[in-house]
């Protein structure tokens, strides 16, 4: 059937099973919006208040559901506004397809109105990007884009469509397969490597599993939990790996790295074997790479061969899909061994050095997060922002479900939490979505409060206001003798009033003794609600391993 490029875009989205589209109109995407209008109700349009918000919402939707997040924006500023969202998804390997309008083919290169070289700009922050030269390429390129976004290590793919192509007519047939030259990632681990892995695991007296984002995003959390339970292997998690939760509580040792638990980092530094699943050994995890896990042999399982040996030398690489590799390993009964001595050692660390904070009169964020953990259901999806709030959430909220923490791990994007929570709620209308943000990050995409109202989404929001850009302030306390340069923001607005102006219920929380009641009200509310909490401005994230230091070098006070 002959149809316009704009209609081809809509039909291709339908072929890919897209039912939710984050989009913002503009001059260069008018034909697509017209086709979406004519299409009616097959695709739900979510219009944010800023393209960056739309991009993060698509990202949050993808993180929470595992589906590809899709957004459409116009050329020039529409496209450039999404670059932070694209970079964010790229760092955390989130599948996105970004469709950007472009000025007509004949105007490209003339500095036309709202022209930006978006394929040039996004080159280093996309898994792949394409500009359409001919309407005939449109459907095959969209097929390729969805395929690439999902396959292997997922990531964002951008397709730039000049507006004249959206009007051009051609025969539409959606290809069954993407035409690609290489890039068929291996699913199974190499049998020889697996044999060695089994032998290493069998011989290990102090084994430790590190679960990374690859476990969550390959939907392997259930299998990883089972693997740890069956073989009695203790497990720790990276920021992106939260959600790992073996049934046996004595096997779980929290987060690791810069703000990991003391016992988690102890486990890393004292293990004799590490099985790293879908981990990229970021600098926030390694501390000092030279002294990371000094006594351990490392088995590194990852779908991306480029991750092997990138940040740390490993003893046994296994290139493969985490789920497939776990399926291969889980049948190997020889791995079983008595590890009770090692578990006891870790248990005593956990008892002697638990996660803790000073309980004085003021309102403590850790206390609030523990209360949230208590009153919100187990399958709550938590979206955190970046900075102290992010680390407290990671430390004090116990994640028991896969894909239940949405956080900007790699790029560290302030302003991520609110739009990501919106995307998650749209993907999972039946689950509670709870957002944590600091006063700084919340204001970076605060306009998306209107999106919550527009679509009547039930999103619960906790703004932890300490009147500072807290994480930087904490570093300034440590490194700059409390010269708080640029980080004081005691002039914050009344967030409760802002929420009410939008039409969202809001509560204020100033005193520790009111915390429990407020949290109960927040959890019980059947529509969106914001809590503006004035927390102790001097509170720090602890424990802490200073940048570049060994994980043994744990600070418990500043």
């Amino acid at each position, binding site marked *: 059937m002959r149809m316009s490029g704009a209609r081809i875009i809509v039909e291709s989205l339908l072929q890919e099973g897209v039912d939710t589209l984050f989009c913002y109109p503009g001059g260069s995407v008018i034909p697509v919006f017209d086709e979406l209008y004519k299409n009616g109700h097959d695709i739900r349009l979510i219009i944010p208040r800023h393209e960056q918000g739309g991009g993060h919402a698509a990202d949050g939707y993808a993180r929470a559901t595992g589906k590809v997040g899709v957004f459409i924006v116009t050329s020039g500023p529409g496209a450039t506004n999404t670059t932070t969202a694209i970079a964010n998804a790229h760092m955390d390997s989130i599948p996105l397809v970004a469709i950007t309008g472009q000025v007509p083919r004949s105007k490209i290169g003339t500095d036309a109105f709202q022209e930006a070289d978006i394929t*040039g700009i996004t080159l280093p922050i996309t898994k792949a990007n394409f500009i359409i030269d001919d309407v005939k390429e449109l459907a095959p390129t969209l097929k390729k884009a969805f395929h690439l976004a999902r396959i292997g290590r997922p990531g964002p793919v951008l397709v730039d469509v000049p507006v004249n192509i959206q009007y051009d007519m051609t025969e539409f047939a959606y290809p069954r397969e993407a035409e690609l*030259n*290489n*890039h068929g990632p291996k699913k199974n681990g190499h049998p020889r490597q697996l044999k060695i892995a089994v032998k290493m695991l069998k011989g290990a007296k102090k084994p430790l599993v590190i679960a990374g984002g690859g476990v969550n995003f390959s939907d392997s959390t259930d299998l990883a939990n089972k693997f740890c339970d069956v073989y009695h292997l203790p497990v720790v998690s990276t920021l992106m790996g939260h959600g790992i939760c073996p049934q046996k509580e004595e096997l779980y040792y929290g987060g690791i790295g810069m703000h990991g638990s003391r016992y988690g980092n102890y486990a890393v530094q004292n293990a004799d074997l590490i099985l790293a699943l879908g981990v990229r050994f970021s600098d926030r995890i390694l501390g000092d790479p030279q002294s990371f896990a000094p006594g351990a042999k490392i088995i590194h399982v990852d779908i991306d*061969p*480029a991750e092997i040996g990138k940040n740390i030398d490993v003893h046994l690489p296994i290139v493969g899909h985490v789920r497939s590799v776990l399926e291969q390993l889980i049948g190997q009964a020889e791995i079983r061994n008595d590890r009770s001595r090692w578990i006891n050692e870790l248990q005593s660390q956990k008892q002697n050095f638990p996660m803790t904070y000073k309980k004085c009169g003021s309102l403590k964020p850790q206390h609030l997060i523990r209360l949230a953990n208590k009153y919100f259901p187990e399958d709550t999806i938590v979206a955190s922002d970046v900075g102290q709030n992010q680390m407290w959430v990671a430390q004090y909220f116990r994640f028991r479900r896969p894909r239940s923490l949405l956080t900007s791990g790699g790029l560290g994007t302030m302003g991520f939490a609110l739009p990501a929570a919106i995307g998650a709620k749209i993907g999972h209308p039946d689950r509670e979505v709870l957002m944590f943000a600091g006063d700084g990050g919340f204001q970076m995409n605060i306009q998306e409060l209107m999106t919550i109202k527009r679509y009547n989404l039930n999103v619960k929001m906790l703004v932890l206001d300490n009147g500072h850009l807290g994480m930087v302030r904490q570093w300034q306390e440590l490194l700059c003798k409390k010269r708080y340069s640029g980080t004081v923001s005691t002039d914050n607005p009344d967030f409760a009033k802002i929420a009410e102006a939008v039409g969202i219920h809001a509560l204020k929380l100033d005193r520790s003794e009111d915390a429990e009641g407020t949290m109960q009200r927040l959890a019980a509310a059947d529509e969106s609600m914001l809590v503006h909490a004035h927390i102790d401005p001097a509170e720090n994230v602890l424990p802490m391993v200073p940048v570049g230091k060994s994980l043994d070098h744990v600070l418990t006070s500043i």
Partner: protein
Amino acid sequence: MTQQNHSRHTISVLVYNHPGIMAKVTSLFTRRGFHVESITAGKAKDEEMLRLTIVVMADSKSLEQIQKQLYKVIDTVKVSLIHPELKVEREMALIKVKPPNVPKSELFQLVNVFRGRVVDASPSGFIIEITGPVPKIDAFINLLARNSIIEIARTGTVAINRWPGKVGTSVERRA
């Protein structure tokens, strides 16, 4: 990454000649902090493809990382390392020189010794074409009087692995 264990390596990359491919490859080097000495591109056996020859300074660890990252570029078909000994490597230079102060025959003799050619001559000067491994071209340029050189255009290295067999046949010495 320390600079100490860095040595020169040649990587040959076969890619689809799709729009922006050169930008994709070169931006990769900047983004990952790899130092490129030269990069050349030309049509490969298959008309749709380009063969890039990239010379980098790298230690063994970053060399491995470079190859893996190159493979992640969607249009990459094959990445191969050129063997440091079992290779044929060439560069071409066009050198514009003023007429020498010494007799012209001395200049022509030098060009002959290096198996170069004079490809353009005018009262204002000459253009010399010379082909060979990089050190040979460096040596030739060093032998020219410095102030006689007006401009140099070098292609950068192209290289290909040898047929398997003995190293350094007489064919190589003739080149």
